[in-house]
């Protein structure tokens, strides 16, 4: 139905996933992971599962990012490899 929109979402999804794997700064990785969660929530909404998309946006884009940032500030900032 909205296949052009879905292709754009999939391209952004895969790009953010590779950025989150690749980047050295862990704070940037957390923010990119939140963007990944939000894009996947948009994909769920386009596919018709509005409740699942709402849960994914709230949990993945909001609270899990906060918890990751707290863990990063409690440990060291940069990745070792």
């Amino acid at each position, binding site marked *: 139905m909205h296949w052009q929109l879905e292709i754009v979402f999939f391209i952004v999804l895969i790009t953010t996933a590779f950025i989150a794997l690749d980047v050295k700064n862990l704070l940037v990785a957390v923010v990119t992971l939140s963007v990944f969660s939000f894009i996947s929530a948009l994909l769920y909404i386009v596919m018709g599962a*509005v*409740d699942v998309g*709402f*849960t994914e946006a*709230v*949990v993945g884009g*909001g*609270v899990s990012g*906060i*918890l990751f940032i*707290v*863990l990063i*500030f*409690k440990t060291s900032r940069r990745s070792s490899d």
Partner: protein
Amino acid sequence: MTRKDNNPIVSLLSRIVSPFIMLFALYVIFHGHYSPGGGFQGGTMLAAAVLLIRLAAGREISQLQFKKSWGTPVGSVGVFIYFFTGFLALLMGGNYLDYSFLPLGLEAPVTRGWGILSIEIGVGLAVMGILVAIYDDLLEGEPND
């Protein structure tokens, strides 16, 4: 969170935005019968509003809003509301979690709607309390959290 100097822009903006997030979370919980949403989403948004104040304002001001020792009791009260709604239906002669036996004096479909609202409130309280409690437990013992 761990910074000592307070940025006035971040502090003011978080204080402006946080009540509106709470209002929308209450809308999501209580309007879950008619629109997408429900207890889990609304409770997570309530927890996000509380955690926004905690991240931006530091320890003393956030303790005025939601104390550190309240998280786990609020979560336990939420799960107890859920459990007790089902147990009340069991006491009134129905099956466990069969809301049409709740003693409200209405007809069966309306009673089930009110039972669904009751357990949504329980789920929202549980999720909010537990998420805030996990945040507070992670930052336990920091000098200026």
